[in-house]
């Protein structure tokens, strides 16, 4: 029984961060119609930046976010303006191709600089544990959970109650009408993408402690994020967070209860099962 709670707890902890990752992708998709297939490689980039900052200045990942988040946000803006914006409105698959190319560039760039060996970035909290009854939780995961939820909550409030958030939702619902309100649609798209990448930098620092990293891991994160985004109905905030938790729990159950490769398949099996019976994902019509 304690295994069940362990799996559940672990799943919720990691799932919240998956949800956060997917929110970034969902926002960008809603506003520009772009699915960024190099999503996971930006996470990788964030992680390796933390590694570099550790090697050079002995900075703990939780501290280097103060540098990596602004840096990656700026990189995101530049990437969007020069690489992605010229392609918006073109064939969807062409944009996908572009982001796949970007993925290769990022992966190989990291490979060239850091080499191919898995590396660890030490953190002060790395081996600390939190024990609740029968359940053993790793402190980095608990921190990731807390920060992810707080950030997701912050995003929710931003979208609901600020003018910037409303402009994002307006551009998503009807870009033409948004432009007629005097909203600078182009600027909203750049800022949303940059915000998404900034979130990835933060998530990278959250996921980093205790995890060995290597340049080719990007795809794994991209695929998980895609699962969560699609499960969440592409642009539904609550659906995406819920999807993150579900995928996280599926992954935890898989690794705890099933042996080897089968365990890693769990998220995909759950995903297919849900989509078969509910193709619209975890969305539902609002009650009003």
């Amino acid at each position, binding site marked *: 029984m304690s295994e069940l709670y362990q799996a559940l707890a672990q799943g919720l902890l990691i799932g919240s961060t998956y949800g956060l990752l997917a929110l970034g992708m969902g926002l960008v998709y809603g506003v520009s119609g772009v699915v960024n297939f190099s999503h996971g490689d930006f996470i990788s980039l964030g992680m390796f930046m933390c590694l570099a900052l550790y090697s050079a200045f002995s900075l703990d990942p939780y501290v280097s976010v103060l540098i990596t988040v602004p840096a990656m946000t700026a990189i995101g803006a530049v990437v969007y303006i020069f690489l992605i914006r010229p392609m918006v409105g073109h064939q969807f698959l062409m944009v996908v191709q572009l982001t796949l190319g970007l993925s290769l560039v990022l992966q190989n760039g990291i490979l060239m600089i850091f080499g191919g060996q898995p590396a660890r970035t030490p953190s002060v909290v790395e081996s600390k544990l939190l024990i609740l009854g029968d359940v053993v939780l790793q402190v980095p995961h608990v921190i990731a959970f807390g920060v992810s939820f707080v950030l997701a909550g912050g995003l929710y409030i931003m979208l609901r109650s600020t*003018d910037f958030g*409303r*402009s994002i*939702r*307006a551009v998503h*619902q*009807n870009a*033409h*009408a*948004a*432009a*007629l*309100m*005097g*909203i*600078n649609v182009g600027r909203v798209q750049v800022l949303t993408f940059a915000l998404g990448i900034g979130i990835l930098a933060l998530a990278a620092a959250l996921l980093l402690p205790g995890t060995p990293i290597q340049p080719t891991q990007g795809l794994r994160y991209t695929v998980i994020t895609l699962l969560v985004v699609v499960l969440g109905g592409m642009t539904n905030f609550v659906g995406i967070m819920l999807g993150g938790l579900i995928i996280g729990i599926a992954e935890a159950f898989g690794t705890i209860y099933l042996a080897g490769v089968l365990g890693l398949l769990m998220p995909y099996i759950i995903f297919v099962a849900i989509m078969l019976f509910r193709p619209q994902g975890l969305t539902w019509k*609002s009650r*009003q």
Partner: protein
Amino acid sequence: MLELENLVAGYGGVAVLRDVSIKLDAGEIVGLLGANNAGKTTLINCLSGMVAPISGRILFEGRDISRLSAQQRVEAGIVQVPEGRLVFPEMSVRENLLLGGINARARTHRPRQMDKVLELFPRLKERLSQHAGTLSGGEQQMLAIGRGLMAEAKLLMLDEPSLGLSPLFVQYIFEIIDKLPAEGLTVLLVEQNLMLTLRHAARCYVLERGQVAVEGAADVVMNDPRTRSAYLGL
């Protein structure tokens, strides 16, 4: 306050508007008439900055605004209430109105403007937290116009406000349109409904295949045989 000089505009290099010149004085309600595809929506999209002219000039309050972006046009006071309402369906009435006043000039007195708009449209006040997509056609039109008024327009351009509305709603909305010049607005009314427009606009232009076929005071335009032929293609 608005002058279009020899405007040529279209899509993908194909001209829809061919040498159009119109002018509006402050406080007027001017009608822009014409059959489908005559170029009416293209013209107001040019004014809104959504379509770049191929040639010609747009002068607003004496300035050449031809180079201003869509955002800058709204800031300057040129506001469009688009055809088909285009309300944000998954946002509440209140949020739609807030978005109407999101431009820098309007934002400073948004709460006051919201009160004024809700007084003008009490039906919207009742449905403030309802999602705009669930409103009826007439209510959506009220919301779209309310949204336009939130922007503190100097020139309000209405594209087919009567489309798909019941006669009662049409009457209600046009009563409001009549009151707008008293609030300091100039109105450009784009309509297919000939008689309705001639009743509310002091002056009219009739577009036919991208050019001004008839222009003048409402009764003059009404009696001009070219107006009928512009509509019936005779």
